[in-house]
């Protein structure tokens, strides 16, 4: 029987990452959905980068940036007394970067068009922007939120390359399931590799299944 702690660590990493992404991603996607700034394409291209870059590129830059010799990594060591690389926090940062487009793009798509019109209507009825956002935009974009959250979660579950480069393979801290599977395969321990792979496959399938089930039940946009 394989060590299940790596699975639990993977789920924890995906949950924390998704939560952080939701906090950062919502305002950013909102801004992108309504801005006419000429910098918009630049920002959009930057956000989409993790879709096309090899994880080794992200991993390499993260390794450099998190090093205590680098300004960011050095600051972190000063502030917390621990290095950022090889830590759970480091993996969260890596995963947030890696899954960024999976949160932003569905949200941005959901926020565009009808939602913006509804917001203008709400404003004409003197609703405050914040009030309108939570009572009009969020319910209308429910499907976008579900897609964004589930894709970010599932994508982080499947993370491998970035963790391999900045994780250091530490039990309970950075040895996520994908890394453990890799090591099991490399040491010809196929029984454990099979067990872990199957569990991960089932979790991933169920996660994605839920989102498609949800999308079937709910229309793309709730019209007012």
């Amino acid at each position: 029987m394989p060590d299940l702690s790596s699975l639990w660590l993977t789920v924890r990493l995906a949950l924390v990452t998704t939560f952080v992404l939701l906090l950062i991603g919502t305002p950013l996607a909102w801004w992108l959905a309504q801005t006419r700034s000429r910098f918009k394409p630049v920002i959009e291209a930057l956000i989409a980068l993790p879709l096309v870059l090899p994880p080794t590129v992200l991993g390499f830059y993260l390794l450099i940036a998190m090093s205590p010799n680098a300004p960011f990594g050095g600051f972190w060591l000063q502030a917390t007394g621990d290095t950022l690389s090889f830590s759970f926090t480091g993996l969260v940062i890596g995963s947030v970067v890696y899954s960024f487009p999976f949160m932003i793009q569905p949200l941005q798509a959901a926020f565009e068009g009808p939602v913006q019109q509804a917001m203008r209507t709400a404003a004409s009825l003197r609703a405050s922007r914040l009030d309108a956002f939570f009572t009009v935009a969020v319910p209308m974009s429910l499907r976008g939120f579900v897609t964004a959250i589930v894709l970010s979660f599932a994508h982080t579950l499947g993370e491998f390359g970035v963790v391999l480069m900045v994780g250091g393979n530490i039990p309970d801290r950075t040895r996520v399931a994908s890394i453990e599977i890799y090591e099991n395969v490399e040491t010809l321990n196929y029984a454990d590799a099979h067990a872990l792979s199957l569990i991960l496959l089932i979790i991933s399938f169920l996660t994605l299944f839920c989102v498609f089930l949800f999308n079937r039940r709910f229309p793309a946009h709730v019209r007012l």
Partner: protein
Amino acid sequence: MLSRTVSEVPAIKLFIFLCLGSLLAACAQPAAQETVTVAVAANFKPALDRLETDFEARTEFKLDVVVGSTGKLYAQIVYGAPYDVFLAADQERPVRLIEETQAVEGSRFTYALGRLLLWGTDTPAKLSTPEIKRIAIANPNLAPYGKAAEQLIERLGLTEAIETKLVLGENVGQAFAFVRTGNAQLGFVSEAQIIGLDDGDMTPSWHPPADLFDPIAQDAVLLTRAEDKPAALAFMTYLQSDDARDIIAQHGYDLP
């Protein structure tokens, strides 16, 4: 509509032609007989780079190099990786390959005796001090240098004291990179990697005395698929020549 369809035909033909062309180009192998593919444990890569130049200058053969941890390369060979020669960082895996008839009986010899080194400090006392947050070693399950490091830490009586500081590289090359990029303050690496640095690196290091770790006997073995391959046989012969042994010695290895 029709005229447009017709005008598209040459474009489609050209596209198919290009596809087939690139497919053929991808399939066309370089004359396989003249190239020897060597799977090498990460620690020996710097030395092999030099050997490659020398070997290619002396013979008409070409050398292709695949780098990894000994354990990883072993697993790849068991599952049919197209390598001709395996330069392991231990004796165990080459012996096992012979037992499994993946390697040629009688072809095994020790090509180098590796030395382990603590990089980043000149005293092992530093290992357990609080300012050292992370210590890089190669994964002991995959890499003999990782296993040797584990054994050394145990003989120093520090296993429990520094257990939580250890970070594992996939092979000794990644352990080296962790220290080199500053992410780990200390690391157990092979002496050959430090000698391989040509930028006048002044990082202090500690050379453990011989009674604290067993010299790392690294064995070479000819893989069964290359049994009759002239290039592979030539490389195995070359690796035992005095010229090759000189180069190996210059790279921080002892020789049997």
